[in-house]
């Protein structure tokens, strides 16, 4: 038996049915990826709502972040599932006098923090406009955080923080955002979303 091998045959034509099949796959792929993006966004941007009528605050914070209430702050939320330093958002209210300026409040914050935080350093203080056009002041700073348990060997983490200060109704509202310095630019979107949803 003789076998005749034909090589380099011209490309076969693709039938319309086959072409539509491929188009459908591509369409399915695009739709699927869009659904995936939507799922991702709805998961990553899911929020829980916190309302404090006494303090006049309504905030939406990332879902599954641990919330707690302290004496120094109205509330604080931390991303406990994050590996390493837990990204934190906190709102504190301080009384202010008639002559107190935002600068005074931020200076007091700086003085207190410098006593307790390692390598605390203010990098900038500048005007800031909140999403609702409220004028505020933002203070950016960094420090080194480490676990306080003396029996564990925790490596310190460089933390970058921002205090956004608004003086309103005779009190200073300080929104604090803390993040691992290396992830700050990624995590700052969380702060921005938080500020968009914040009512006070």
């Amino acid at each position: 038996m003789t076998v005749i091998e034909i090589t380099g045959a011209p490309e076969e034509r693709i039938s319309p049915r086959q072409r539509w099949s491929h188009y459908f796959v591509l369409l399915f792929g695009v739709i699927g990826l869009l659904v995936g993006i939507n799922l991702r966004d709805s998961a990553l941007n899911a929020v829980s709502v916190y309302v404090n009528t006494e303090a006049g605050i309504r905030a939406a914070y990332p879902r599954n972040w641990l919330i707690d209430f302290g004496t120094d702050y109205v509330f604080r939320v931390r991303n406990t599932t994050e590996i390493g330093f837990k990204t934190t958002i906190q709102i504190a209210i301080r009384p202010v006098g008639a002559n107190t300026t935002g600068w005074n409040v931020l200076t007091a914050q700086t003085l207190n923090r410098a006593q307790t935080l390692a390598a605390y350093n203010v990098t900038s203080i500048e005007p800031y406009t909140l999403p609702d056009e409220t004028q505020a002041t933002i203070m950016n700073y960094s420090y080194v955080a480490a676990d306080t348990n003396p029996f564990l060997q925790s490596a310190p983490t460089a933390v970058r923080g921002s205090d956004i200060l608004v003086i309103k109704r005779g009190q200073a509202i300080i929104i604090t955002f803390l993040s691992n310095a290396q992830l700050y630019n990624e995590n700052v979107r969380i702060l921005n979303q938080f500020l968009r949803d914040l009512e006070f």
Partner: protein
Amino acid sequence: MIQQGILFVLAAGMFAAVNFLGIQLPANFSQIGGLLLVFVPVGLWLLLSWRPESSAPQPRQRLINVAIISGLAANAIAIPMVQDFFQVDLWLPLAGAINRIIGYSFTAGITYEIIKYLVIRYTVWPDDFSERFDSVAYGTAGAIGFSTVLNLIFILSDTPPPDIAALRIFETTTLQLATSLIVGYALAELRFSRPTPLLLPSAVAVAAFINGVAIPIRAGLVNATFNLTTSAPKSLFGLGFAVALFAVVVAVVSFLLRSTEQQAREAAPSQEGELR
């Protein structure tokens, strides 16, 4: 099948040697051993598929090309898409079971399967599909290339011990092979029959869904149950699940391929007769 059988024996054997017989491998062997293990599926594929193929009368010419391009596409597109764009690590592991399946289906599943499909579509389909079982050969090549890169990333980023590496390599390779067979079947049908235009997207969807189901189910089976002493992973459950999934997919695809092949053969003489 033989290749996966050997891989299974290797993975199970290594796991048993370390965990049941207590054989300890040197710590610095982990990465080298892991790298060697990554290339075992490739080696077996070269040995059992590509080498016999090259000596066949009508060799499938582009098997290596498909494997390499699949691997490159996995590294360049699939992994960055899943890890950096979809950031599945940030939201899927902590989600509920149904959400995890849906999430993985529409992220990793879709991405992986579309990429593997596109590689075959634009390298060998339809020119190099001369018979239905070509889809199996090229699907396997794509899956091997794709899974090798997934495994390589796993080994290089995590440096797992060899027994764990062997299990994960087997599971990843098996899953990618299984899903590639499904898409391969649809491509073969599209090439040699006149199926509905929705068959191929359906096959890609099924493959994506199997990815979406398999990833969380495997992890869920392996995940430790809390215990006041040691909450150890149930690694063998993952191995068993991979074997079962592969067996089912191979059986189904094999049945479909054989039956359609059979139908085609039965149809051929009558057509010839009609022509006469």
